[in-house]
């Protein structure tokens, strides 16, 4: 189990390779990688800046990760989220889960990214050709999170 919040760009391939090493008993590894898109809502995106709440971010991510381990038989998990300014095509977030059962790995990975999107204190500021603005939360993210309620 690990949570990392960092400004530095990361190499998703390297993260997956490291996460995969020496897994003799792991049946499956699911992962999700979020990237900065060059367009959003019909506007060209020149850069994205992620603000966060240091301290609360780590606390919430650890809580979300612990919840995933409570719900599914996971052998390991990893959440890496960047903050600061980044350009289109750059990675923002990487989530990986390992389990002996593929369904547990897949479900837990989807759960982590859904909950992270609604519960971790990050805010996106977009720079477009028409100036900068804070990205608004989407109702669909809230719905995606709520389907995991039990």
């Amino acid at each position: 189990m690990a949570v990392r919040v960092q400004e530095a760009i990361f190499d998703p391939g390297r993260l997956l390779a490291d996460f995969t090493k020496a897994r003799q008993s792991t049946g499956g590894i699911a992962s999700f990688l979020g990237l900065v898109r060059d367009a959003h809502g019909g506007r060209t995106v020149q850069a994205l800046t992620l603000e966060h709440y240091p301290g609360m971010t780590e606390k919430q991510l650890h809580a979300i990760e612990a919840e995933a381990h409570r719900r599914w038989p996971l052998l390991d998990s990893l959440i890496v989220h960047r903050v600061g300014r980044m350009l289109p095509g750059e990675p923002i977030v990487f989530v990986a889960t390992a389990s002996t059962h593929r369904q547990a790995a897949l479900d837990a990975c989807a759960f982590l990214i859904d909950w992270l999107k609604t519960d971790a204190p990050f805010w996106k500021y977009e720079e477009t050709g028409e100036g900068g603005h804070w990205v608004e939360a989407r109702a669909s993210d809230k719905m995606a999170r709520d389907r995991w309620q039990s």
Partner: protein
Amino acid sequence: MPLQIRYFAWLKQRTGVAAEEIDLPAEIKDVAALKAWLGRRHPRFAEACAAGGIVRCAVNHDYVEDDRTLLPGDEVAFFPPVTGG
């Protein structure tokens, strides 16, 4: 009662400060009352609170509702719905 207040994202632009240390009058006991009190200092924060559902609150790094009782030394943060991931 001494409290740490923090604002994030566009709420920070509404108040003009990222953080402030306040000394709360004794009659202000919960988050709802604190929001009203802060609204008198920052009219544009009051506006955002009035809009409904767009100002979230955390105390000591945990999400709380408006009825959360405040304690001396609490760190209280206000921010819009999150948009990470």
